[in-house]
């Protein structure tokens, strides 16, 4: 286990060094990402500016939701480039080589790349999160800070899990399916707003199928001490981030089934 962690850091240090060869391009892309994702939040701000509020939610409260999901997504996105591009790995037969190495396939795929230019997006998400944490009315405490960290870690797990599932589908289709983007990008987009504003079928989807609400909306309610229009008990709000880690474990199991199913394309 410890060995694997050391190997992972070795992998990504290679990846980071190779990305730093194009320093100007890296700086440009990071700044670009910073501004682009800023645009996202500008949209939310403009809506609050026009409408004043959102069914009992203020801009700072929504900013907390947005910041949490944005940071979690960015971590996952930066780590999972290998799964995102996995269809190419399957198509050109590179996966065969991974199978003969005496290391877990997940470790090798995830070690392919740590996308450094996401640092721009991370900065933007963190900035919104810090501003929201500072501006909300509810007082902060040590358990709450811990809950926030757990929620972000749980959120990262779910998004990594989704990227793994997206990669797993390549074992059957050899193509990466755009439909998975609705879950990753669409999930990030919708979960930045309070879950209670959505229709019931949509809420259920993000609670029970892809449990992003468990790592964002519910813990945020506890942090904000905001009453839940959906009526979830406080215990659930405090423990829900665990669901995120469970999701990742399930995704890893599905990946194993996929690997057993793998047939080389022969190229």
């Amino acid at each position: 286990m410890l060995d694997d962690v050391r190997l992972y850091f070795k992998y990504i240090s290679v990846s980071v060094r190779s990305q730093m060869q194009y320093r100007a391009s890296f700086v440009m892309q990071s700044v670009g990402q910073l501004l682009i994702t800023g645009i996202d939040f500008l949209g939310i701000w403009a809506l609050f500016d026009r409408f004043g509020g959102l069914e009992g939610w203020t801009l700072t409260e929504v900013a907390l939701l947005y910041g949490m999901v944005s940071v979690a997504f960015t971590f996952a996105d930066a780590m999972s480039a290998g799964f995102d591009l996995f269809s190419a790995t399957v198509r050109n037969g590179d996966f065969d080589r991974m199978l003969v190495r005496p290391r877990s396939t997940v470790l090798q795929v995830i070690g392919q790349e740590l996308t450094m230019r996401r640092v721009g997006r991370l900065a933007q998400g963190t900035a919104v999160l810090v501003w929201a944490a500072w501006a909300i009315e509810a007082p902060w405490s040590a358990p709450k800070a811990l809950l926030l960290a757990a929620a972000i870690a749980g959120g990262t797990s779910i998004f990594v899990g989704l990227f793994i599932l997206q990669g797993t589908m390549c074992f059957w289709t050899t193509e990466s399916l755009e439909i998975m983007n609705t879950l990753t990008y669409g999930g990030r987009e919708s979960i930045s707003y309070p879950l209670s504003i959505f229709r019931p079928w949509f809420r259920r989807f993000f609670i029970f199928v892809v449990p992003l609400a468990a790592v964002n909306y519910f813990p945020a309610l506890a942090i904000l001490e905001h009453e839940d229009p959906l009526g979830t008990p406080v215990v659930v709000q405090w423990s829900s981030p665990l669901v995120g880690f469970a999701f990742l474990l399930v995704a890893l199991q599905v990946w194993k089934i996929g690997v057993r199913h793998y047939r080389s394309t022969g190229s």
Partner: protein
Amino acid sequence: MKAYRAIVSARFRMMLQYRAAAAAGLGTQLFWGFIRIMIFTAFYRVAKAPQPMTLEQVVSYVWLGQAMFAMLPWSVEPDLRVMIRSGNVAYELLRPVDLYWLWFSRSVARRSAPTLLRAVPMFIIAGLFFGLRAPQSVGVAAAWLAAMAGAFVLSCAISTILSISLLWTVSGEGVMVLMSGAAWLLSGMIIPLPLFPDWAQGILAFLPFRGVADAPYRVYMGNIPLNEVWVVLAHQLAWIAAFVVVGRALVGRGLRRLAVQGG
């Protein structure tokens, strides 16, 4: 002219091959549309003052945006980026046609085929089931088609400039990322432009980006009355002219400093 027509039709046919991608894209766009509409609906539920657009208009606006999504100027041709990086762009220079119009034609093909593939089913589905209203009269529909044509050419002119900026590889990439982000926000794809603060409306009306999405959509739903449609068309034409002139000048300068990688 014949050469450009051939380029467009060849690439158009190539793009038509991506039917499975278009079908998957349709699902994605429907989902995305649902999310946007649910968010706007929630905001409208608590709105006290009357808004510059009704919720019904916003719903139609979102669906039009999802239907016409593929023609917006938020990407350059991926082939061109590879060509410039690898040096194969030299072959483009050898062709006996004007480079600006060659790349413009590529952009036309890249936008028309996917738009057709995605827009038609989207209009049918959103129109039948999800609240996309039909235009109020034949006159409005005709005005909308005219504005859409303007939007299409304007979008191609903007994306051609983005392609040209890649000749300055590194800074070009930055320009591209920023421009596509700006186009996304300022064309109304994130939220309809009339919902932005009132003080921003003047700037938004001046900038070119509303011409590719916001303006034609509002013509469609009668939010811009028929007797003001000429303003939309004039705004589009002025910016098309500006982008073409600047684009041609940039091609000249970019080529002079372009170093083709050998090997």
